[in-house]
């Protein structure tokens, strides 16, 4: 790992100021993506501003159907939250499928979405739940937040502070993990939101990262059943192709995961 300088921020404003004063600094939250990347020398931030201990970014609040999750909430906290479980058990299931128990004790939802790894799990849920992502500067809808592979709408000194969404009437996440890394080869989050409208978020498979599948959404909005999406097409040209699976394989996986998720949501 290259040299770096570490500072711990105690509030959001300070964190933004500390970062602005660095050459090429980065925020660090759980470190479960950033530290492995720095160890491989694929990232060399001059400074690290730790946002994990900022109180305003911690905690989970559920008020009726409003769910709000602090950006520093760990995957384990989301997986085990009784409140989230009542509002949207699918999100607990998803958080519990990330990595392993040790990664889940450190990794945070804010870090995961800010990183926008094309194989990460949370982005699929964020777009399917139409989540609103609140930052130190503004609130961004999930549809506009995830822009490309490892790219988001965030500016350099912008901090994700919380994530909010309305509890769906039903939802489920189905993931086909890469057997070695446990990241998604394809992961599909289906949700029935207001007025029976369906939203389908797909991760792990798309060549420009997480995406919504319009045809499946239309079909499920009319008829929430596995049969309804049987004839939907997943465009191979828009799929990732790598040594773990080619585009045709991934396109098929997306369909299979979507059907499993619809069946699991009931």
């Amino acid at each position: 790992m290259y040299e770096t300088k570490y500072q711990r921020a105690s509030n959001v404003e300070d964190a933004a100021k500390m970062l602005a004063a660095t050459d090429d600094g980065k925020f660090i939250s759980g470190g479960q993506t950033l530290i492995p990347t720095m160890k491989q020398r694929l990232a060399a931030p001059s400074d690290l501003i730790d946002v994990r201990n900022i109180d305003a970014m911690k905690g989970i609040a559920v008020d009726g159907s409003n769910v709000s999750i602090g950006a520093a909430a760990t995957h384990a906290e989301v997986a085990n939250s009784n409140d989230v479980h009542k509002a949207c058990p699918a999100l607990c299931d998803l958080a519990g499928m990330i990595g392993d128990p040790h990664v889940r004790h450190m990794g945070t939802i804010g870090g995961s979405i800010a990183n926008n790894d094309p194989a990460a799990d949370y982005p699929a849920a964020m777009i399917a739940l139409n989540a609103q992502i609140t930052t130190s500067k503004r609130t961004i809808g999930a549809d506009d937040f995830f822009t490309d592979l490892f790219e988001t709408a965030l500016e350099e000194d912008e901090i994700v502070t919380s994530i909010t969404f309305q509890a769906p009437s039903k939802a489920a996440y189905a993931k086909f993990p890469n057997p070695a890394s446990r990241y998604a080869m394809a992961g599909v989050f289906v949700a029935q939101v207001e007025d029976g409208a369906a939203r389908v978020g797909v991760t792990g498979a798309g060549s420009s990262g997480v995406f919504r599948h319009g045809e499946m959404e239309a079909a499920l909005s009319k008829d929430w059943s596995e049969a309804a999406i049987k004839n939907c097409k997943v465009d191979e040209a828009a799929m990732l192709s790598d040594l773990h699976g080619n585009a045709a394989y991934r396109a098929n996986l997306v369909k299979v995961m979507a059907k499993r998720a619809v069946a699991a949501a009931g």
Partner: protein
Amino acid sequence: MTSISMSVNGKAVSGDVEDRTLLVQFIREDLRLTGTHVGCDTSQCGACVVHVDGKAVKSCTMLAVQASGSEVTTIEGLANGGDLHPLQTAFKENHGLQCGFCTPGMIMSAADMIARYKASGSKLDEKAIREELEGNICRCTGYHNIVRSIEDAAAKMS
């Protein structure tokens, strides 16, 4: 260099470290507690698992400065003097190790999962143990005896 201090196995320790020092380096090289192992450079093997503020984490994927102010427990902190921890006894009796390289991480992960399942009141059965061991790799045993050791210890610790 940054001055850090933390509690390790109940003892207050401090040191001056480069900010890039990993917690596992501080534990092994500065504190000379070499029971915590490093088995990979990709954060995947779990040989380095320690407890920080009561939770199992990979000490190769945390900076020592991040752990400043925390309570850390390593494999050396489990036994009570000459009395082995029930997990250590169970690994010994159930042939839960061969080369032993993964064992410190396996035992620290096992202690964490047993505590969590106990606190939540759910049953730590064989299937749950196998899932919980997702982040711990063993190249020798084929896992069966590790799972058996954990089941045995969990029963004795309940």
